[in-house]
């Protein structure tokens, strides 16, 4: 699986620094878990094992390293403590981690790009999606980003320099190349149709059940 380059990430609305952090699948999985539910480090480690253990191997030290990296990048933060009088005591060293708004956005952008380019890992990504996209608003944002990935690929399918058979020159290779382009286009058509369906479902969820 090819990782997106920095320029591509920036174009997709992912901050370059965030994009660099999200090159680590462990960091992405940890971020998704923190978005799902603010937690302490040890609890995140336990949930990581339950959720992603069969796909990703990471010890507790890797989980804590990922939490540190995500903190440094401003994608997660420690929750502020509160006294019984309601006065904020500021962030505590032992406080649970929670995602920042920037972290949630970066996660959805990364997820939308990755789901599109990495269909072989649909199940793992599905679990990540369930972890990090758990409101209608977040789902709508995720769908919009997914759509942009589809539209961009449809445009770029025709870009010069993407020739798979460059230099081959034979009519057969040329036809095969065009057929491959057409195969991708039809896949994108199916994905765009799914997006239309997903939006209709989300709209129905927002407007509530229809009386019959």
């Amino acid at each position: 699986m090819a990782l997106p380059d920095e320029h591509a990430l920036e174009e997709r609305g992912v901050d370059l620094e965030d994009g660099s952090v999200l090159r680590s699948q462990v960091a992405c999985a940890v971020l998704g878990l923190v978005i799902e539910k603010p937690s302490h480090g040890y609890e995140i480690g336990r949930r990581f094992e339950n959720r992603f253990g069969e796909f990703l191997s990471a010890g507790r030290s890797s989980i804590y390293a990922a939490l540190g990296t995500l903190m440094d990048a401003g994608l997660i933060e420690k929750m502020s403590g509160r006294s019984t009088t309601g006065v904020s005591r500021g962030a505590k060293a032992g406080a649970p981690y929670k995602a920042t708004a920037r972290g949630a956005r970066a996660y959805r952008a990364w997820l939308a790009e990755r789901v599109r380019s990495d269909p072989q890992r649909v199940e793992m990504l599905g679990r990540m999606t369930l972890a990090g996209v758990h409101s209608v608003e977040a789902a709508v944002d995720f769908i919009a980003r997914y759509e942009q990935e589809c539209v961009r690929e449809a445009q770029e399918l025709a870009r010069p320099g993407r020739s798979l058979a460059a230099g081959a020159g034979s009519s057969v290779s040329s036809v095969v190349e065009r057929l491959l382009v057409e195969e991708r286009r039809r896949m994108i058509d199916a994905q765009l149709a799914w997006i239309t369906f997903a939006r209709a479902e989300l709209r129905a969820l927002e407007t509530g059940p229809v009386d019959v």
Partner: protein
Amino acid sequence: MSLLSVEHATKRYRRGRLERVAIKDVSLEIEPGELVAVWGARRSGRSTLLRVAAGIESPEEGVVRFEGRELARFRNSILGHRLGYCQMGFNAADGGLVVEHIAAGLLAQRASPRDARRRAQEMLLRVGASQCERMSCHELDGAEAVRVSIAGALVTAPALLVIDEPTNGVEPLDRDPILALLRSLANEGVAVLMSTGDAQGLSGADRALSLDNGELRGEARPSGAQVLPLRRAESGARRR
């Protein structure tokens, strides 16, 4: 100043007590020489957006400006002159020859019959449909009809061409050459605003706007996009 700007346009259709919002608070700008594709599913509002952008219909809210002038007020001097709208399909009244159909736009502007015919022939050659010159409009196949329609819109040398689903009803192998034609027109400086319901129509677009339920949802723009034809584009349209 943009060539075309649609500012917060909303358009509704009413049938009895029912009302449907076709486009909702849509804004977009088009610059000279840009190829902009509007992608959307059926009933997304893509065709309405193009009719509003071309001045065929006026928005109930918002404003459309062409070269800084309000389209609703100056429609007659803009549409069919500096702004070309590709009318797809021909009705029974279009029984004449293709070349006469193309020339009609110029005759309406008081061009001499000779000049109008010469210009129509030039445009048919430009769009790869010169072999259709002596045909009747109802004889054209899908791809030829689209090319002739483009020629009809280009005959007045517009700065913007608006075309709704140019590959609709066109055989699969003839679609990419039509998209390549639109790309080449943009490369020559004619801005193109088109709609599409499939991924193929996005090929080569400078910008792709996605429309859903009448609202613009996003915009994507690759650099240096060009159409890779599914079949090598011929100098003319399909030979008979």
